[in-house]
């Protein structure tokens, strides 16, 4: 089993990256790999609670993060600095995450076999 890390650094709807990342995460999970998701920079916004996309006619994919533990994807990490800079706290996020400092995040990244960036 290899360690796969998905690094999410984009806001949810302005680009296709957030949705594409989710799709690849689900694929990786079906191959029984050790999958971690990381949310950095604007990627933290992907997890913001209360997203309502009715007005923009795009599917609200934020609920999919809640389904991840059904695929045994349970390692979700948020960088504290990114979260705080955006005025968010753990209570504002749609799923339970582990909040890490930049140094802790860097260490986690360094121990991966494969890092995929979105």
């Amino acid at each position, binding site marked *: 089993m290899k360690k796969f890390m998905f690094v999410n650094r984009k806001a949810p*709807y302005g680009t296709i990256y957030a949705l594409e990342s989710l799709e690849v995460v689900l694929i990786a999970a079906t191959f029984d790999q050790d999958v971690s998701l990381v949310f950095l920079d*604007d990627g933290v*916004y992907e997890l*913001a609670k*209360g997203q*309502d*996309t*009715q*007005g923009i006619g795009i599917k609200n994919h934020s609920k999919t993060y809640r389904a991840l533990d059904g695929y045994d994807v349970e390692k979700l990490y948020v960088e504290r600095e990114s979260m705080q800079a955006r*005025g968010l706290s753990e209570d504002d996020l749609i799923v339970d995450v582990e909040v890490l400092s930049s140094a802790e995040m860097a260490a986690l990244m360094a121990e991966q076999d494969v890092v995929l960036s979105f």
Partner: protein
Amino acid sequence: MLHIVNKSHRQTSSLASCLRLAQDGHALLLIEDGVYAATTAGAASAGLAEALARLKVYVLRPDLEARGVAAALAEGVTAVDYTGFVDLVAEHTNNQTWL
């Protein structure tokens, strides 16, 4: 002139360039990922306070709602719907989109 910005101010320099070149009295409309600059935490890092002193600043509400940040709207920014977007384009003699 109406300036339209659709990128996050933390991801690209679109908003910074717009603010550098927009003249006093111009209007700024934040849409798509540009709306993060209109949140309280975003406004501080985007330099929006200074912009509000000399520009009329609008934000597209459906884009705020989609991103779950409508409750964090910064003071002084006017939220508009799609009809308001069309009105802004019609009211101004020209407009520029900062991609």
